[in-house]
Structure formats: structure tokens, C-alpha cells
């Protein structure tokens, strides 16, 4: 978990929204021809895609999130939408192989990839989710590897007020960042923006845009806000160790998992919107000219998952719902060399059409032990 004192070793700079605009401008010139990817408003909904200017971004809205509920109102506290950097790095549908009618193979991993990408305004939880995907897919998934290596700069927007569904301070993945980024900014109020550098590129940006060091009062209110955000989230769940211990003890508690997944219909929304879910299924699309072998996002909560030649190893839905939770909290660390599979973003909860709440599930598992 990030401690506020650790953060205090970083120098803070202050500016206005217009300075953020200048940061973007500077990066555009610095990386001529780069594509900027981030949250952008499309038909009044924040999606993940190419941004051309600050005005494309959800900078004048706040999101209201509850289990199964999402709304945008006027404000300056945008946290998340269903989308995440995964939409760029591991697209929902990607072709992995093309074959001609004469069985001639065509490399289809090359086409239409941007060669330089700046991630702009992604969240601390998003950055941690990318680290999880990296640990699992780099060098193993050719498209992910190519897309990931196209990312040349990462600019983070820190949250000073979490959404109702967020719990990144529990998973140690936010709301502030310590490493793995170039520049981070946080919106102290509607127009005041606090900046910090996370790399030499970040320092260069700060220098080039002439940002001034934050005054003591700004520094204080930034840390106060961070602390407040973290303490709000810390009341939402028990400690991670306690959650993991309770999960371990309840792996074979069939009755508990059946109750917890009572309302789950196995629709898979939780998996698709989760920024660290990476499972795909493979389909062959036979066309008149080429046949394409395509990878599609799949979901461990759907019946497809666990279906193998000759049988099904997680036939009952409760087993798949359980797997989803256990994978995030117990199995990912084994796969990633220690990283948790859940970054506390709450997307699975907000975007579950049935309103199943991950936090509630975890609390109930812990209560079962207590």
C-alpha cells in the first residue's frame, strides 16, 4: 500500500488547465506524429480512444457510480468508464492469422498499428492494470507486445476523490502513482492542476512548459486530498491480507459461493470491463477470399469458459463466479510474480447489469471467517 510520506519525496508543480493543454502540445511536438490515447467523450459517454485535444477529454464532467449504475454530471472529477487502456492494448477482437484458399499464411499482426502512442490522462489503477497485463502477455501475445511497445509516454491523471465503487487504496494501486509513469497530474479544483514528474521525460516536460513549483498551501491541500481519498476507500473493505486469507479458507465452501452468485446470470460484463482480464477465445472466420483466425475477448463467468473437448471443468455458474474472484485475488500473484489481479477500479461492479457488488462479495467472504 502507498503511504503518504513516500509520496512526499516528489517535487510538486502547480498550474492551470491551460498548462495541461500546453503539456499536450509540447508532447505533440516532441513526438511528432504520435497518437494520443485516453478517455474521450463520444456521444456523451467516455470511451477509450484517440484524443486530439483536451476538449475531447471528459474534463468537465464527474461520474456517479453505483452497482449497476453510471451517470455523468457536470463537474471536474472524472474517474472511469467501462473502457480502459485494454481497449487499445488488447482489442476486443483481433485477427491473429490469415490463410488464403491455397493455404498460404499471411502475417496479420502487422497491419494498422500506430507506431508511437502517448497514453494521456489514464488513471493510477489503469497504470497498474497495464503492469499486470505486461507480466502476463509481453513476449507471449504478439499483438499485445507490439501495441505495448508502441507506448512511448504515459501521463497519469490522479484521482483526488474516488468514485463510490473504487477501492484502489486497498489493492495498493492508487489513487496516486509512485513509478512507471512519465508525468502525473491531479486536479486540485476546477482549474488548479498539480503536476509531478516520474521520469526524465517528465522533468523535461515540466521544464519546457515552465511550470512553477507548487506553493506550500497547494502542497498541503494536495496531500490532504490524497489522504482523505485513501481513508474513504479504506473503510470500504478489510485489509487485503485478511481478504486473501478468508478467500483461501473458503475455496471449497460451495454453499457460500452459491449464495454469493445467486443473482449472477453469467453474462460476462464484469470480465469484459475488467482492465486486467485478458482471456480470449479463438474463432475461424471462413470468407470467400481469406480465412481469418480471430481472437475474441471471452469471460470466465460465461459458459464458454471451461468448455473443452470432451467436457466442461466449471459447469456450474457459481464455480465460474468463484474462479473470477479467486483468480483476481489469489492466482494472479502466482502468474505475475506478485502483482494482484484486481486494481480496485470497481468497473465490474458498476457495469454488472444485475448490480452484483465485488466489495460486498469480499466482505461476505471475510465475515464467513469471522
Amino acid at each position: 500500500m502507498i503511504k503518504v510520506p513516500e509520496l512526499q519525496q516528489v517535487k510538486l508543480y502547480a498550474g492551470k488547465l491551460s498548462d495541461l493543454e500546453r503539456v499536450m502540445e509540447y508532447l505533440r511536438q516532441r513526438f511528432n506524429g504520435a497518437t494520443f490515447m485516453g478517455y474521450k467523450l463520444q456521444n456523451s459517454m467516455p470511451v477509450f480512444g484517440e484524443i486530439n485535444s483536451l476538449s475531447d477529454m471528459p474534463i468537465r464532467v464527474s461520474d456517479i457510480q453505483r452497482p449497476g449504475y453510471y451517470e455523468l454530471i457536470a463537474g471536474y472529477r472524472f474517474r472511469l468508464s467501462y473502457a480502459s487502456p485494454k481497449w487499445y492494448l488488447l482489442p476486443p477482437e483481433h485477427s491473429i492469422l490469415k490463410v488464403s484458399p491455397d493455404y498460404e499464411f499471411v502475417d496479420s499482426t502487422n497491419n494498422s498499428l500506430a507506431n508511437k502512442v502517448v497514453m494521456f490522462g489514464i488513471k493510477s489503477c489503469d497504470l497498474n492494470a497495464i503492469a499486470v497485463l505486461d507480466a502476463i502477455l509481453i513476449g507471449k501475445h504478439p499483438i499485445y507486445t507490439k501495441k505495448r511497445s508502441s507506448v512511448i509516454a504515459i501521463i497519469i491523471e490522479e484521482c483526488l476523490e474516488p468514485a463510490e465503487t473504487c477501492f484502489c487504496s486497498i489493492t495498493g494501486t492508487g489513487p496516486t502513482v509512485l513509478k512507471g509513469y512519465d508525468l502525473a497530474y491531479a486536479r486540485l479544483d476546477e482549474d488548479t492542476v498539480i503536476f509531478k514528474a516520474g521520469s526524465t521525460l517528465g522533468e523535461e516536460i515540466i521544464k519546457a512548459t515552465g511550470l512553477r513549483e507548487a506553493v506550500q498551501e497547494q502542497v498541503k491541500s494536495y496531500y490532504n486530498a490524497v489522504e482523505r481519498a485513501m481513508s474513504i476507500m479504506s473503510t470500504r473493505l478489510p485489509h487485503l491480507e485478511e481478504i486473501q486469507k478468508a478467500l483461501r479458507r473458503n475455496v471449497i465452501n460451495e454453499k457460500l459461493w452459491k449464495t454469493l452468485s445467486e443473482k449472477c446470470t453469467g453474462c460476462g460484463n464484469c470480465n469484459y470491463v475488467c482492465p486486467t482480464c485478458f482471456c480470449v477465445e479463438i474463432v475461424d472466420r471462413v470468407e470467400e477470399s481469406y480465412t481469418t483466425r480471430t481472437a475474441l475477448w471471452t469471460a470466465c463467468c460465461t459458459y464458454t469458459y471451461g468448455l473443452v473437448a470432451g467436457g466442461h471443468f466449471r459447469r456450474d455458474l457459481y464455480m465460474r463466479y468463484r474462479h473470477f474472484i479467486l483468480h483476481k485475488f489469489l492466482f494472479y500473484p502466482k502468474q505475475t510474480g506478485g502483482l494482484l489481479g484486481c486494481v480496485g477500479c470497481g468497473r465490474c461492479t458498476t457495469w454488472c447489469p444485475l448490480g452484483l457488488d465485488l466489495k460486498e462479495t469480499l466482505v461476505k467472504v471475510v465475515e464467513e471467517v469471522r
Partner: protein
Amino acid sequence: MIRVLVAKLTSCSGCLNEVIYALTHSDIRAKYNVTYFTEVLNVDKISNAELAFIEGSITTKHQEEFLKNLRSQVEFLIALGTCALMGGVQSLRLEGNIEDVKKTIYPEPRYIDILSEVKPVDSVVKVDFAIPGCPINGDALVSFLRKYALGGLPVAIYETVCSECKRKNIPCIIVTQKSPCLGPITISGCGALCPQFGRGCYGCYGLKFFDITREKINALLDRLVELKVDEGNLKAILLAYSFKLYSKLKESRC
């Protein structure tokens, strides 16, 4: 060339239109020879074939015999669409008395010779492959025909409309608009056609036949009733598009 029969029972011909669409592809025409298809060919005698496509459900004694005879002449039978698989919208009449139903439509109901039930194709003959939809997705049929011609079959993928909806980058309309949607319990295949146009799924591909219990349906219905949707209407829709499964779940309350 692979010999094919295309037959219709009680249905609207919507799925047959998709068969015609599939046959507009020249590579498919080059491999298949349709020998019986009353909507298109002037042939009224059934002869041996490799494949048969059946649209519609059984609502008369005659249809039942016709289907049994057809099954004995083909190697591989494919049921097309919600009527063939679930019963179809004609199942709505099962809520009432059959004689009353006849009277509401026909001036001389005594001439109407129909069964009191509505039977999906698999309740009468063996079905080898099913393509859901109301109507079916023409591209699913094209894909089937291309793979079958190569000696294979499409791999069945068990998902709901939500899977296709998310992969198409559509924000959930239950979550963002408080609009009703049956996507979470409806089998995939349409490509999330309705949510793509900002409208809820009304389940025309039918309930998914895996993972679903009465409780799960109720959990979604409760959620939709919270969004001020009339429960009676939702149940009528489930009966119309998913009669075979929904009526069973209704009895067992599993």
C-alpha cells in the same frame, strides 16, 4: 455438390430469406445444390439429400408426418430460428384456449385443423445442428455452409448478447439509461443488434439454455421491474421467444 432440402413449417419465412441471402454468395452456390425449397423452386417432391434446413414449429398433424418423412431422407438436419428451436411467437396462443384463439381470427373456426400444442422441431425428430435467431443471422448460416463444405462445423460458443455488446464497445443501456434489456439471459448470435441502436434486447434469439434457472431469470426481471418495466410484458416476451425453455422453468421453479 452437396444436396440440400429447405423446408418450412409454421413460421414467417424470415429465416428462409436468410437462406436465400446465403445462396447469393457464388462460392456457396458452387458447392450446394438445393433440390427442394417451395419458396423458390417449383418442386413439390422430397428426394434424398445430405442436408435439410427446417424453419418453423409443428402446429398440425400433417406437419409432424411431413417432418418425420423428411428426416428419414436426409443425413444432417439443421433447425433454423426461434420457431424451430423454441416454438416461436405462435406459442403465445398456449396461454389461452385453442378454440377461443381460432374464433378471434377466423370467421369459420371449424375449418381450422391444428394441434392444441406448439412443438419445436426437436420434439418430433432428431436435430443435428441449431442456428438460433428470429430471424437467424444470415452470416451465421453463411459461415456454417462454408465450414461444412470444408468438412467441418462451426464451434459452438455459449455466450449471451452482452458478450457481443461489450466487444462492440456499446455502453450498457441498463447501467447508463435505466432501459430494460434481456441481454444477460439471451443467447448470443445477433451481434447485439438492438443495443447497438440504443434499444434493449427483447430476447428474440431465445433464452440461453445453460446457466439459467428460474431464480436467475427472476433476478433480472426484478432488476427490470425496478426500472419501471411491466413484469407481465416481460413474461409474455419470454414466452413468445423462449417457449420451450421458459415453460419448463416455469413448472419446475428450479
